[in-house]
């Protein structure tokens, strides 16, 4: 079994129109070799099951019990969508994966979040190093006060993933190609990132996360603030990336989840109501609440 075959269809989902298009030779994306993968243990874990294993997760903050005993496994490749109405805890869940909730007032947690078998909330875990391994993209693309080049090269340089100028150049080009931005910005890499459009800035944010060669990429409603054309670009990018990376996508748009993901989890009131292959969730949901939500009953 080669790596390629395993990642092309890891969960054996039959049919489906959402296969990653990377191997089709679309000339928007290059197949340039990846740069040295420091800290990436996927080779060893290729056949070792889900990348994230969450069990019995309870999260409290601000006096509210936001997540109530969530148990969910996130597959190693492909796109895992998380859907649910506002306030159901999907963002909190996502942020719990890379400990972004830590600083919220009154934050308390019970249960386990395992990244490749390691408890993310364990004693002595280096949060800074952890976040390097997990990329996150937020709803509102906020450009860094730097040039486009710098925005992408900044974090890898800080984490000592790249040293020489040549390495930096290669990393920047690689990340920008992966998000389809390279051709649009290669002539003006020195321009402030704020000059890009909203959709481009969001793709830049994805490139920023990719530059750190993460094990997983978490996206929290990445297209909510983007126009439809930008949204299409981003969804294309995600589908391409889904072949190589773990992608967890929180979205308020059930259509987006249906378009893009391989697996979907439906959250309601801090609990996972139902989880499974996207096809099944949307066409043959088990729980009546799921059916009500995906047919547009509420949310």
């Amino acid at each position: 079994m080669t790596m390629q075959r395993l990642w092309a269809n890891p969960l054996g989902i039959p049919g489906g129109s959402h296969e990653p298009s990377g191997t089709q030779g679309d000339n928007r994306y290059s197949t340039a070799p990846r740069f040295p993968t420091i800290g990436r243990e996927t080779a060893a874990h290729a056949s070792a099951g889900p990348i994230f294993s969450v069990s019995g997760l309870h999260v409290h903050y601000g006096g509210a019990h936001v997540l109530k005993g969530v148990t969910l496994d996130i597959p190693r490749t492909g796109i895992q969508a998380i859907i649910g109405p506002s306030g159901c805890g999907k963002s909190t869940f996502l942020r719990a994966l890379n400990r972004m909730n830590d600083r919220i007032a009154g934050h308390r947690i019970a249960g386990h979040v395992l990244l490749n078998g390691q408890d993310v909330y364990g004693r002595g875990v280096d949060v800074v190093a952890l976040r390097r391994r997990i990329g996150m993209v937020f709803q509102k693309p906020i450009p860094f006060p730097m040039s486009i080049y710098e925005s992408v090269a900044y974090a890898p340089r800080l984490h000592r993933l790249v040293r020489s100028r040549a390495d930096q150049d290669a990393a920047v080009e690689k990340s920008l190609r992966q998000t389809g931005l390279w051709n649009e910005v290669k002539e003006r890499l020195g321009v402030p990132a704020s000059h890009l459009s909203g959709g481009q800035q969001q793709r830049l944010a994805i490139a920023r996360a990719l530059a750190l060669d993460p094990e997983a990429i978490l996206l929290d409603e990445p297209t909510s603030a983007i126009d439809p054309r930008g949204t299409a670009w981003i969804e294309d990018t995600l589908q391409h990336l889904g072949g190589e990376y773990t992608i967890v996508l929180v979205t308020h748009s059930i259509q987006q989840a249906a378009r893009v993901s391989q697996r979907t989890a439906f959250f309601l009131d801090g609990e996972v109501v139902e989880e499974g292959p996207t096809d099944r969730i949307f066409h043959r949901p088990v729980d009546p609440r799921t059916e009500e939500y995906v047919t547009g009953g509420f949310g």
Partner: protein
Amino acid sequence: MVSEVARLAAARRNQEWVWSLLAAVGAASGPFVLGVIMIVLLVFAWPSIVWNGDTFFTTYIWNLGNLYGGAPVIRSGYAAASGASYGMLSFLVGTLLSSALALVLAAPVGIGVAFCLSEFAGRGVSRVLSFFIELLAGVPSVIFGLWGFVVLVPWIQRTAGPALASLLGFIPIFRGPVPTGMGLLASGVVLGAMILPIIAAVSRDALRAVPAELREQGRALGLTEWEVARDLVWRIAAPGVTASCILALGRALGETMAVLMVSGNALNYLPSTIYSPISTIAATIVALLDSAMTDATGMAIHALAELAVVLFAVTVGVNLIAPAVVRRVGRQRGWVASWVTGGNP
């Protein structure tokens, strides 16, 4: 019945008109007062401007002349005592040096405080500390002068001055001996303590104006708090922080009482070391107004008016021009915290 309604409506309209007028008068009072002040200052300064000419700015001897005898010297229709010569250079130098020293001392500390209040301290602690910083801003300048006179000056004279002189004495401005503790160093330190809260508070606001999401994005990339503050937040807040320093400079330039009590009130010479007594424009106006009244020609009063005009121009200029310049620089760099431009970046 109809006339009743009409009468009420008319009364109401009159009432509206009266209130609107009162409000407009209130709004006009500001420009009116300012205009009157400017006109009066210029009118009173005019004889000195004419009589002294350029030498007012280029010489440093301030001499009222012979007030008891000798014929008055008349130039361009204005009279001054014989032997009189008015040069403000020493006051100008004293003002600029003491304010510059104050800024050099206060800016790093104030910015450090701002970072603490905005980035590193928790919300409760930050609020308490902000209260104390703002309390410091409200302390009357005579109290700063009192503290400077009673605590700082003897300390400089006995401890800090000699220590500096022995450590850095090879640099001319630090060369001893230390005459008294009153002088440029004391003035700079006291002024620095006074303007520090301005820098801290305004810079803190500039830092806080940076959207919280930016910090989150930085943290998500595995940056430490310090890296987020240094590389992301700082760059966006920098124009605001610069504005705070320039506002603080404006305040330092016009400060009177505290400097009066610790500067040594030098007259007719320029400072040579950091321990030299100095005089500032503002302190001089206070110190010399009494003696100016003994000048029968009145030129001394007019000369003080010219000092007031210069002080007015410099402080107002700094306070107004600086934020505009900072706005322009920030916009060129491509990122400005919206609170500076007041709207779209």
